[in-house]
């Protein structure tokens, strides 16, 4: 049976920027990957450049962009129905139960989410925390891969156990980045810097046993 992978991040584009190459490589290895997207990124501040979205239409654009991105990556998407910027204020236990119930139905081999406390954006930390707790409560917990973003993550946590060279999947990741048109410009600027581009070609993840 093919490997079952669930990716749990809060925003349309987290899957691509944070793990696009890894996702594409897992798909090529035969895995069935589903992105559980926490919110529609309704409160994002990037509105396209030049501006084409506004606060009230942004979610429509971002949902459509995500549909294109997951089609590029070859995966499915499920929306979890939380609202951008507010995840950390939801009762943690309710989110854990929500995620654990869904995970027990899906029985994934691997869950990919943010490393709680080291993922910079409050939504990343909050959904990552709920996902980690949900996995811990499972009788047969799947493997955990955790994406850390904060500048002090390696100082505090050491080197991530997993470093995937995604050079062979860079074209797919780039194509997926470009589908996130309302959000991509900031990232594309960053990629014009050669050192950042090289960094983006290796995707690193901590494993469940590196949680503290």
């Amino acid at each position, binding site marked *: 049976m093919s490997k079952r992978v669930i990716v749990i991040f809060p925003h349309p584009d987290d899957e691509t920027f944070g793990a696009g190459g890894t996702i594409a490589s897992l798909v090529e290895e035969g895995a069935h990957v589903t992105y559980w997207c926490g919110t*529609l990124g309704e409160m994002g501040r990037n509105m396209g450049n030049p501006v084409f979205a506004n606060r009230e239409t942004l979610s429509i654009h971002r949902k459509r962009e995500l549909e294109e991105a997951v089609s590029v990556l070859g995966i499915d998407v499920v929306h979890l129905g939380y609202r951008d*910027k507010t995840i950390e204020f939801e009762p943690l236990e309710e989110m854990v139960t929500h995620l654990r119930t869904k995970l027990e139905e899906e029985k994934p081999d691997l869950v990919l989410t943010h490393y709680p406390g080291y993922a910079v954006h409050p939504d990343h930390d909050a959904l990552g925390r709920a996902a980690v707790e949900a996995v811990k409560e499972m009788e047969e917990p799947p493997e955990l891969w955790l994406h850390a973003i904060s500048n002090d993550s390696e100082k505090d946590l050491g080197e991530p156990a997993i470093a995937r060279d995604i050079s062979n999947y860079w074209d797919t990741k780039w194509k997926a980045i470009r589908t996130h048109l309302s959000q991509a410009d900031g990232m594309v600027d960053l990629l014009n810097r050669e050192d950042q581009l090289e960094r983006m070609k290796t995707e690193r993840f901590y494993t469940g046993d590196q949680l503290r």
Partner: protein
Amino acid sequence: MEPIVKEEAQKEIDKFAGTPVYVHLETTNGAYASHFNAQAHNVGAFIRNANVTYEHGKIISTGGGYRVGLKLELGWVYAEGLTDYEVDEQNRLLMAGHDEQGRLMVALEISETPFAHEADYHE
């Protein structure tokens, strides 16, 4: 959205005066401000669907942008840095201030009906 035309925006603000309206007011410098610059501080605030009635409202040009103040019976609604506006198909007045990269810095929106509050999509 289009660059604010002060007289036109003032007319739209006037239309909502004296009737109960829903307001979305927001400012942000992004969730990554202190990630990219250790000296920076993340700052943001929003209120969605504040139900208010304003006696009158006024838009003021600051040269580079606009300020809007709405006078309530017991207070004020205030936004600075607005640059763009539109009246959408639901007759809502949407105003926002964007930086040079098109990123939203401030928003003030006025509507006779509530803004979408729950997540827009449930599975």
